């Protein structure tokens, strides 16, 4: 008996000695939302794109500073303004062993534009994708487009053979009854493979030994879990059950920074939070002003702008985790942003403007606000309500969960709002996206500037937007954009940009991460001690 025990002990010690060195690590991360589908074309959402960016790759990639770099395409050139040639990387294999070729690119371009795809905007609808040889592809455009490839880092390339063999040649249509293979399985070319995926519970990533690049991470396993409850997510981070958590509620930042295990990494995000007005109805739907629309008067819009003290919001409501913004785009994405200082709050001037406009006693209007979408969204709206009350504007605040809020104010609800708070990130990281979505005229069905909720509309801006789309000279293009912003913001006061909210990642002190401003979680750049 005693001998047996000794032998057992010896065996245990031997095992312990021969265990591999603790170099390779398991990285555990938790996000508030689910990784809903593994099909990279089924949901156009930053989080999904980021997670799948560890498995799938596009022709281009973006580096740690968001600069466009080669991905599955080694290089490319604009042969003619309407013909782009992409030279594909050779020797790249999909995770199931198939070779990556031009056929896959042509196939992916078609698939991305299928009816059920949510990433149709990645490619112009009429672009022709032509295979020149196995490793060369031409994109033939109907008009020049200098930002053709700006969003291609999240237009991921799927294997044609794999998708067709598994009945996933098209993204899963919304109404389908059958299981979609591509929604539950992944086959990319990227640094990680997905070995287990339980939708809404847990996803396990392992390094891809066949990856063409050189890994910077030291993970042997990455485990993603959803933790939707804020308090639980923070507790899991503090107790060391997870290494990374996002988002961290602002009120927990100090507590985490004071803890032994973890810290909060805050950085500027690209999303701009702003207020918008209904500028097209002849009478506001939700106001006590009858027979006319006060927001059609530029003086009223300017008065609203000047009445709101954004610095106070950034300081108090956002606890400094926000950068006040003069434009509808983040300064990281537009080099001439520095020419636009943010006008200071001036309630006296605001009051004067309101009086000039014929509202000496102010008026009443309902404000639509989400309460679970952006950081402290409802609190921002409450602060705005209080600030506008100082100049005599009575805001009836209607704060609702995002599911109801978006259904009301966006096209599906018939743009049913008079005054609202919204956030916007330009998917292409470029001003054209802002102009096209926020400043182009639209009709009732949303054709045109689909997300121009208040329908700010000016033919001059329309023309400039079209010019900006095709202008290939960067300096000229930037000047055009600057003029457009000058008109819309400084003359027309079309929107009230508030701030860019800060990212707040909770990170274990053992982990080194790269926090990119677009909040994509690319853990192939992370390391754990």
């Amino acid at each position, binding site marked *: 008996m005693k001998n047996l025990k000794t032998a057992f002990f010896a065996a245990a010690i031997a095992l312990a000695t021969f265990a591999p060195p603790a170099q390779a690590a398991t990285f555990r991360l938790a996000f508030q939302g689910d990784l809903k589908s593994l099909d990279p074309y089924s949901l156009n959402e930053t989080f999904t794109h980021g997670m799948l960016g560890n498995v799938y790759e596009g022709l281009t990639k973006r580096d740690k500073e968001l600069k466009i770099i080669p991905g599955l395409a080694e290089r490319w050139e604009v042969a003619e303004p309407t013909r782009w040639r992409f030279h594909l990387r050779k020797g790249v294999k999909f995770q199931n062993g198939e070779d990556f070729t031009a056929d896959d690119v042509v196939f992916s371009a078609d698939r991305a534009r299928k009816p059920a795809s949510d990433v149709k905007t990645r490619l112009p609808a009429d672009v022709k994708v032509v295979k020149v040889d196995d490793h060369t592809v031409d994109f033939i455009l109907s008009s020049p487009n200098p930002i053709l490839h700006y969003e291609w880092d999240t237009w991921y390339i799927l294997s044609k053979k794999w998708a067709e063999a598994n009945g996933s040649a098209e993204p899963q249509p919304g109404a389908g009854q059958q299981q979609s293979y591509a929604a539950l399985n992944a086959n990319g070319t990227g640094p990680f493979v997905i070995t287990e995926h339980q939708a809404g519970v847990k996803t396990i990533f392992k390094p891809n030994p066949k990856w063409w690049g050189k890994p910077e991470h030291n993970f042997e396993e990455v485990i993603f879990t959803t933790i939707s*409850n804020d308090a639980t997510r923070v507790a899991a981070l503090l107790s060391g059950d997870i290494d990374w958590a996002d988002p961290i509620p602002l009120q927990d930042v100090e507590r985490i920074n004071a803890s032994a295990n973890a810290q909060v990494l805050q950085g500027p995000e690209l999303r701009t939070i702003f207020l918008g007005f209904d500028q097209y109805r002849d009478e506001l739907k939700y106001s006590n002003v009858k027979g006319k629309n006060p927001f059609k008067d530029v003086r009223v819009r300017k008065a609203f702008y000047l009445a709101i003290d954004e610095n106070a919001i950034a300081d108090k409501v956002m606890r400094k985790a926000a950068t006040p913004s003069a434009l509808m785009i983040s300064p990281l994405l537009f080099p001439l942003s520095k020419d636009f200082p943010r006008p200071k709050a001036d309630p006296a001037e605001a009051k004067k403007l309101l009086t000039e406009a014929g509202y000496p006693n102010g008026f009443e209007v309902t404000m639509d606000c989400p309460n679970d979408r952006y950081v402290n969204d409802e609190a921002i709206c409450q602060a705005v309500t209080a600030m506008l009350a100082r100049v005599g504007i009575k805001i009836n605040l209607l704060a609702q969960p995002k599911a109801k809020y978006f259904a009301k104010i966006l096209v599906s609800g018939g743009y049913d709002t008079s005054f609202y708070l919204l956030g916007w990130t330009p998917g292409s990281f470029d001003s054209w996206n802002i102009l096209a979505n926020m400043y182009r005229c639209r009709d009732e069905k949303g*054709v045109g500037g689909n997300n121009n909720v208040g329908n700010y509309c000016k033919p001059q801006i329309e023309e400039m937007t079209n010019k900006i789309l095709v202008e290939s000279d960067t300096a000229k293009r930037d000047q055009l954009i600057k003029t457009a912003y000058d008109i819309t913001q400084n003359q027309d006061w079309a929107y009230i940009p508030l701030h860019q909210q800060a990212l707040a990642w909770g990170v274990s002190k053992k982990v080194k991460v790269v926090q990119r401003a677009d909040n994509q979680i690319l853990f192939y750049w992370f390391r754990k001690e």
Partner: protein
Amino acid sequence: MLAFIIRRLLQSVVVMLTVSLIAFTLFRFVGDPINQMVGIETTAEERAQLREQLGLNDSVPVQFSRFVANAARLNFGNSYQFKTPVIDLIKDRFPATMELAFASALFALLVGIPMGVYTAIDRYAILSNVFLSISLIGISLPTFLIGILLIFLFPVTLGVLPSFGRGEVVRLGFWSTGFLTASGLKALVLPAITLGLFQMTLIMRLVRGEMMEVLRADYIKFARARGLSNRAINFGHALKNTLVPVMTITGLQLGSIIAFALITESVFQWPGMGLLFLKAVQNVDIPIMSAYLLLVAFIFVTINLIVDMLYAVVDPRIRIDTKVA
């Protein structure tokens, strides 16, 4: 007995139809599912197309009858967010909820009954007062608060027990169990206590009350006069007679443990059906919501049916009544 069961089964069908009808009418007010399914840049036409495909443009009666017809064949459609059949998702989550419910019911019984007996017998002991104070906490604090407090006490401050999730699970056919791994068992402790605390309190108070009643009864006095040992009296005679109401309550509470596990599940990120439902509400995932509500109604109805039948088994008077009827 057979007539009784058939009558109850018919009633159950009516209950379930009513539940699904109410649920279905409510779905009109939770928001637009399309917004949760597509990115913000999706155009109006594409959204309209999707609405048409999903049949959201049909009238409520049409949608409802389609749903009932499909549900009768156990076809609940595809989840809007996960793009997989709802029935698969629920099958996947079902074991997690059931194991949690089972563990907390077990906890409630194994701790609640002895505590009840003890506080009934040694009414003035200090420990009795401690137990009663604990039971006050269990009754008065809301579940999510208890969960958060436990998380901050054990995983965060003391560094023991996991703060979320289910640990490692073992797959046994269609069932995934956390009972067979150390991490699975550890992960079960806090959620089971959180979920079971209220039931435990209830059972303890119930047992205590019943025991005190029974201990005053004549036959207990006779038993004492006969010189039976305390143990034989307390456990052999008194406790046995208190168990009928305890059984009823436990049975009925099992239903609510399963149905209301969703709060505990969301605090501990327990991958069960309740959490699935909660997320579905946020994302307006109508197929999941309707399937879940129907399932919960089904569980309640079944448990009630079983309890009713057990009554008949345990209590001969009910049996005789039904025979006469």
